[in-house]
Each structure stands twice: as structure tokens, then as C-alpha cells.
């Protein structure tokens, strides 16, 4: 018969490695978000739209960004939420 313990052990080890990699990547990303707080961030959106704002926070699953002083083509929005689905990339300096 085919032993089932070996593959399941291997799976457990593999899972543990994945979890470790995941936690390291996530920790670094959270540190990146943290360092962005209060900084001027340029958002590159779809349709070649670029907007600038002061970064506040992101929700845990990265669906929305809370920003202040959002410079839009039709004026400055004091407080705003940016839907992450509309964003291609965002840039800031450290």
C-alpha cells in the first residue's frame, strides 16, 4: 500500500515554510505602509490619471486608502477614500 504519512509530513513542512515566508513578507509590507503615513503620495490610476494626496491609512485587506488633501483635476478634497481597485501604483519618497 502507499504510505500516506510521508506526503502529509512533507505537506506540513511545506505549509510551515509558506506561512513563514508569508509572515515575513507581510511584516515588511506593514512596515512600508507605516513609513508612508503622513507622507505625500502620488497615485497612478487607470486612464493615465495621476493624483497626489497625504497618506493616512489602509484597511487590513488593502481595499481602500484613507488620504487627506487629495488633489484631483476638479479641486482639492480635504478627506477622501481611494478605492484600491482604481489604483495601478503609488509612489513616495523615504
Amino acid at each position, binding site marked *: 500500500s502507499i504510505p500516506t504519512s510521508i506526503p502529509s509530513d512533507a505537506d506540513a513542512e511545506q505549509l510551515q*515554510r*509558506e*506561512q513563514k*515566508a*508569508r509572515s*515575513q*513578507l*507581510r511584516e*515588511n*509590507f506593514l*512596515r*512600508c505602509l*507605516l*513609513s*508612508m503615513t503622513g507622507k505625500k503620495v502620488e497615485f497612478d490610476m*487607470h486612464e*493615465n490619471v495621476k493624483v497626489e494626496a497625504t497618506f493616512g491609512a489602509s484597511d*487590513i*485587506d*488593502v481595499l481602500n486608502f484613507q488620504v487627506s488633501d487629495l488633489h484631483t483635476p476638479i479641486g482639492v478634497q480635504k478627506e477622501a477614500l481611494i478605492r*484600491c*481597485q482604481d*489604483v*495601478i*501604483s*503609488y*509612489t*513616495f*519618497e*523615504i
Partner: protein
Amino acid sequence: MQSEWPLLGPSMWSRYVSKQVMVTVENKELRGWLQTVDPVSASLVLVNFKKEGGAVVQVVMGHAVRQVQALKVADQETAERIQACFLPPMIQNMSP
């Protein structure tokens, strides 16, 4: 076009960390040292060091990624610099 990038998983993403990558999005190619990948959104954190000190950080949203290509591996010093980018000053390596 759906990219496979968000589906790769932590082990595969880790292989690109501390490498210079070229990320293809909608209509352009972005380059930088890969600092990390958010395992939740598959977003890539790219770092480009400036000559005068400091760095430009560009985060590319995972959903916008079309393709990721590794260009070169960072040397020891650069790799340390990349990984120290967002660490609190207390535990960053002191540079002369």
C-alpha cells in the same frame, strides 16, 4: 488578461525579493529592487535608491500586474540596504 502573479504564493514571491525586477502593468514597465510583496493584495514594493541619498518607493497593486521579470540579484550591501528601508532607525545598521 489575468496575470498569474497573485496566484504564485509566498514561497514563489520570496524568490523575487532583493532582486531587481521589471513589472509590466497596463501600459508601461516599472523597475526597481523588490523589497517585499504583500501576501494579501499581491502588491509589489519597489525601491529605487537616489544618488543623493534616500529612495523612491513605488508600490504596484497586485491586481494591476501583468508580468514580473527578475533582472538581477542584489549584492550583499544592496540587499541589506533594501531590507533596512522601513526598519525603525533604532535597529537599522549604522552607516559611517
